[in-house]
């Protein structure tokens, strides 16, 4: 398919400085600038290198298990009595979430660049597990920074990473969650610039990460679009995904951005409600600021100090969001809405009982939004939702919340 450049396209960003409107950019220490410029050069070459693309595709098919199925959720559709609901089954990927799509892409890039050591940050541990997995597969030593609080509440994933040969470094600085893990990974990178590749897990950080991670994750939307045309002969009316940093969401959204008939909704973690500080709704309740290499919507106080987020889901527990989402929100192409902890927990149970799929708590937020919207839509309408991860890692959290002993 040979598309002519469309000046009205939503898909042309970022510009050469890594900006999506006022968002994005390269707000990093000078020590890292040459590395980021190198990475950008290498990424620009890899993007159009048939050999790189072929290897990516091969590993996608044989290691990750792509394409992931598009699944018609018949019983959930019946139960809600409105729009037809389809899931893009990213939870069936190797390692159990969409995270592996990006990790495979970046590890190939690290190899190309001659780097010999991988570092990553992780919140819930899904990206840490995916990073440790590809590091094992390609024979790289891997260090994963994880907030001490998260190490405690995500013990099974910590064990997985260790089994895979990664070193998990608990971060006690700050409040010991994902943003502190990211700070610590940046400190490692700035110290070990010569041999280390920083494998960022979400579509955020300094340019070119937001663009690169989006492109690696766009396979989700590209496949889903094709599969939907095969299944229904038309595009969906609504695309929904949960947004933490926003990599699964941008991955499914991006290929649909220029399809005017497709409404797009991103679901943020509303935590215990937007009135207090116990949420992670950066767009709905935050304001633009600069953190971790990019300008984007952040949870912050009047002095520009970053606040801690809260979510039932450790994977959404980040006080920022990828810069492209901030831009899509500002120009109105994508609507961002919050879903509360209790709604996500309810949706988790609904899906488990009706479809026999245990979802992760992150996409449970998207399911909750589907539950709200589907009944108000016509039976001839179609919702596509990204089921970005499976819930095995969350059963302890959920068990505790439901008062069930494990």
């Amino acid at each position, binding site marked *: 398919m040979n598309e002519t450049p469309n000046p009205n396209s939503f898909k042309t960003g970022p510009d050469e400085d890594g900006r999506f409107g006022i968002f994005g*950019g390269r707000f990093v*220490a000078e*020590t890292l600038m*040459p590395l980021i410029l190198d990475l950008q050069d290498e990424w620009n070459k890899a993007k159009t290198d048939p050999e790189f693309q072929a290897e990516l595709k091969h590993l996608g098919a044989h290691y990750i298990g792509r394409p992931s199925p598009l699944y018609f959720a018949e019983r959930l559709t019946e139960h809600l009595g409105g729009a037809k609901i389809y899931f893009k089954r990213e939870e069936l990927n190797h390692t159990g979430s969409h995270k592996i799509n990006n990790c495979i892409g970046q590890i190939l890039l690290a190899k190309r660049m001659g780097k010999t050591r991988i570092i990553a940050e992780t919140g819930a541990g899904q990206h840490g597990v995916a990073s440790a997995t590809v590091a094992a597969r390609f024979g790289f030593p891997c260090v994963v920074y994880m907030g001490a609080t998260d190490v405690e509440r995500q013990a099974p994933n910590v064990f997985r990473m260790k089994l895979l040969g990664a070193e998990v470094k608990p971060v006690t600085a700050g409040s010991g969650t994902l943003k502190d893990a990211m700070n610590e990974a940046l*400190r490692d990178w700035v*110290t070990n*610039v010569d041999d280390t590749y920083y494998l960022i897990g979400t579509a955020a950080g300094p340019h070119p990460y937001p663009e690169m991670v989006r492109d690696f994750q766009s396979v989700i939307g590209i496949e889903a679009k094709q599969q939907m045309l095969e299944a229904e002969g038309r595009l969906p009316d609504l695309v929904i995904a949960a947004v933490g940093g926003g990599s699964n969401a941008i991955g499914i959204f991006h290929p649909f951005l220029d399809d005017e008939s497709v409404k797009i909704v991103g679901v943020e973690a509303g935590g215990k409600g937007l009135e207090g500080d116990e949420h992670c709704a950066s767009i709905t309740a935050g304001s633009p600021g*600069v953190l971790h290499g990019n300008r984007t919507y952040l949870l912050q106080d009047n002095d520009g100090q970053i606040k801690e987020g809260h979510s039932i889901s450790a994977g959404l527990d980040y006080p920022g969001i990828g810069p492209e989402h901030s831009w899509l929100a500002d120009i109105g192409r994508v609507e961002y809405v919050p879903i509360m902890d209790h709604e996500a927990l309810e949706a988790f149970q609904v899906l488990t009982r009706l479809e026999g799929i245990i979802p992760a708590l992150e996409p449970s937020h998207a399911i909750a939004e589907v539950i709200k919207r589907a009944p108000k839509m016509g039976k001839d309408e179609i919702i596509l939702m990204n089921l970005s991860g499976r819930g095995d890692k969350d059963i302890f959290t959920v068990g505790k919340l439901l008062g069930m002993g494990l």
Partner: protein
Amino acid sequence: MTARMDKRFADLAAEGRPALVTYFMGGDPDFDTSLAIMKALPSAGSDIIELGMPFSDPMADGPAIQLAGQRALKGGQTLAKTLEIARRFREGDEDTPIVMMGYYNPIYIYGVERFLDDALAAGIDGLIVVDLPPEMDDELCIPALKKDINFIRLATPTTDDKRLPKVLENTSGFVYYVSMNGITGSALPDPTVVGGAVQRIKGHTKLPVCVGFGVKTAEHARAIGASADGVVVGTAIVNQVASSLTEDGKSTGATVPGVETLVRGLSAGVRSAKLVAAE
């Protein structure tokens, strides 16, 4: 104001010795104590003062400065209060250049124009903002230069000859050479290697070159000062403050004198660097 900085370096050049540049964290552990520390610095031998602006997520700093920032924030420090520390200091000292150092977000949220106006009014001479590389000059660097506030840039071992001109292009006041890849508070690198790097930078600019990261003792200050126009000490001072505090982080009678004693020693170090250079 750029004139104060230029005059200070000209005077030091006439004296034939490097500058002692001292960093401390504004508001650590509280407003009054850090103001007292700042007021004590010049007479203890500090030639230029770096006033740290606390930030919740200091990505380029080691544990010592991270903790100092946390103590300051816990004590209620804000950017407005850090400017107020400078203003109060300036009431009693017209000559010592003040450079505010920190991260961009608090300034961005304060509002760039408003910040620059208030900084000028408070007697600030320069800014070091760690997460604003030359690629981001439109954000703060250019507006600061327009208002006659120096924008001091960090150069690092990864800044090669190809990149140096870009880094130096809009730099003013002095160049801050970060002597190693890493975070603040790391070990001291080999002074000979540092000397070579300073010479390399001097091949590209007429600005003074000050060296930081890893300088902790008078001996370090002397060794580094022998080949640079200035020596920056940060973590050692912040550690000195930390070691004087009570268990719950309150200042004691030893807090300000401890910093004074440390800085006096460092000052003796840079002053003896003059003798080395003159030999």
